[in-house]
């Protein structure tokens, strides 16, 4: 009976009005809109340019001058996967040290290879050069293997990278978007004014996250569409699963944004807190390189990070076509951060 009697004078439910207010403020901030959508594209393009697909990079080889150098040069120049670079005399040591060449051939009899075995590129260069020179010297191979080069869409570095950038975007926009607007409202004493009205505090917090979810579709969609249509990344899993994972991720990071903003009174304070929370995840959660590179002892902590869970789930769906039910661990981690963050934020929140 009582709820039937509610007359809002032409306004909608407070949750809707609060979320609309949040959205309108964002949409009327052109710079915020620009960065939310352009930043992930710039990052994808830059990373794709810096790390082209595997096998595309030739081994760069330098040859020291001396008798026989010309023959070696002619052999290597015609061998596949090898680029010969001319190094000024006396400069070989530096060129090798700085990675300008991956390997240096000294024309002794038999030839001498100078390289740094700790470098993957150098070891690859050694194998290629060795094979090319021995074949030229008359070696016959017992057989030639069939090769299936990993140039299939979906197995390149950039395909692996895009889901990471989608995860990064969801984290960044959710947390910054919510954190800054709350601190701004607190600084303007708008929060205090709101709690002096009959607004429910939980509805305010829910609306902050809800308002952002509307923006999630374009924010996650832009880098995904860019990946699919410009870079040819396949999406092997279902779009529904992908959307659900993005949604759960945005809820988790939205809650964390609320939590970090729950007591901060200045932009300096919230910026510091945001960086403190996000920078470790940029590094540890496997956005740009696999998090399995970190020591075993760190893995439980890394796997518990929300960004790791989000990116792992996104990669499983995009690259392997994993169904949602195989991602329960990742979804549970995200839900845990979301529920815990929201509860803590509601409890700690400073409205004044």
């Amino acid at each position, binding site marked *: 009976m009582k709820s039937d009697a509610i007359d809002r*004078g032409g306004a909608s439910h407070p949750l809707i009005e609060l979320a609309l207010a949040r959205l309108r403020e964002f949409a009327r901030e052109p710079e915020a809109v620009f960065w939310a959508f352009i930043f992930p594209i710039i990052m994808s393009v830059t990373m794709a340019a810096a790390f082209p697909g595997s096998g595309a990079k030739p081994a760069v080889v330098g040859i020291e001058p001396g008798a026989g150098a010309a023959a070696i040069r002619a052999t290597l120049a015609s061998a596949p996967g090898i680029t010969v670079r001319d190094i000024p005399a006396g400069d070989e040591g530096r060129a090798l040290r700085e990675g300008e060449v991956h390997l240096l051939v000294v024309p002794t009899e038999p030839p001498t290879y100078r390289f740094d075995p700790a470098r993957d590129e150098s070891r690859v260069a050694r194998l290629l050069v060795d094979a090319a020179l021995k074949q030229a010297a008359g070696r016959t191979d017992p057989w030639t293997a069939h090769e299936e080069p990993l140039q299939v869409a979906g197995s390149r570095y950039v395909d692996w990278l895009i889901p990471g950038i989608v995860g990064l975007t969801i984290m960044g926009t959710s947390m910054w978007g919510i954190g800054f607007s709350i601190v701004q409202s607190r600084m*303007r004493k708008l929060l205090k004014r709101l709690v*002096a009205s009959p607004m429910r505090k939980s509805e305010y917090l829910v609306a902050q996250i809800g308002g952002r979810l509307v923006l999630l579709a374009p924010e996650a969609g832009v880098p995904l569409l860019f990946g699919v249509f410009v870079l040819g990344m396949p999406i092997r899993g279902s779009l529904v699963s992908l959307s659900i994972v993005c949604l759960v991720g945005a809820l988790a990071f939205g809650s964390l944004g609320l939590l970090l903003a729950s007591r901060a009174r200045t932009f300096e304070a919230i910026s510091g807190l945001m960086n403190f929370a996000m920078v470790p995840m940029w590094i540890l959660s496997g956005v740009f390189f696999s998090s399995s590179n970190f020591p075993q002892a760190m893995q439980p902590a890394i796997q518990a990070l929300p960004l790791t869970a989000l990116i792992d789930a996104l990669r499983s769906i995009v690259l392997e076509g994993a169904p949602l039910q195989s991602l329960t661990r990742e979804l549970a981690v995200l839900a845990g951060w979301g529920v815990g963050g929201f509860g803590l934020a509601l409890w700690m929140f400073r409205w004044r």
Partner: protein
Amino acid sequence: MAVDGLSLHVDRGECFGLLGPNGAGKTTTIEILEGLLEPDAGEVEILGLTWKDHERELRQRIGVQLQETQLADKLTVEETLRLFRSFYHRGRTIDELLRIVELESKRRSWVGKLSGGQKQRLAVSCALAGDPDLLFMDEPTTGLDPQSRRQLWELLSRFRHEGGTILLTTHYMDEAETLCDRVAIVDHGKVIAEGAPRELIASLGAPRVVTHQGTLEDVFVSLTGRHLREE
């Protein structure tokens, strides 16, 4: 301690003013009454209800304007009103609220583009959104030009004539004399005088006031030896 042993009684339908210099404890007092600050000791009863037991109902029945609040710059006047109106279960329509504060022509303007007086009228309109029985105003005309002040006074007078109760703070003597039925003069967190403005001025007696008609300023000076706004 900003306020100490301060006791007030405001009748329904009256306009009561808390008067005092900056830092006297006016804002602390009004925020305790608004349920935004919890007093270390003492009791607050509003419309026969307490904050502890009836917060939800009280919030529906009072209207609040805070001294320092800046409403969102990038929302329009109408959007801001819709937001505040959505929290109340009864009250006027958005159009009526716009009409009362004479902001109909500004309904699609961003709040950030309004003048000081227009912003303040919008703040009052937000406070009136739930058709409150009791209105709290913390220094409602501070920083406004004379015309805007007069406009706001008329607005508050109209609210009172429709049966509303107002509790306001001010450090303007003329504001208190124009609007208030009774005032309490607050200094250092204590009430040093309370009564109708006329009575307080009359209580000074003739000799002190020779060059002009007596004002509340004279009352304050005679009680404290200081001027209200000297700091």
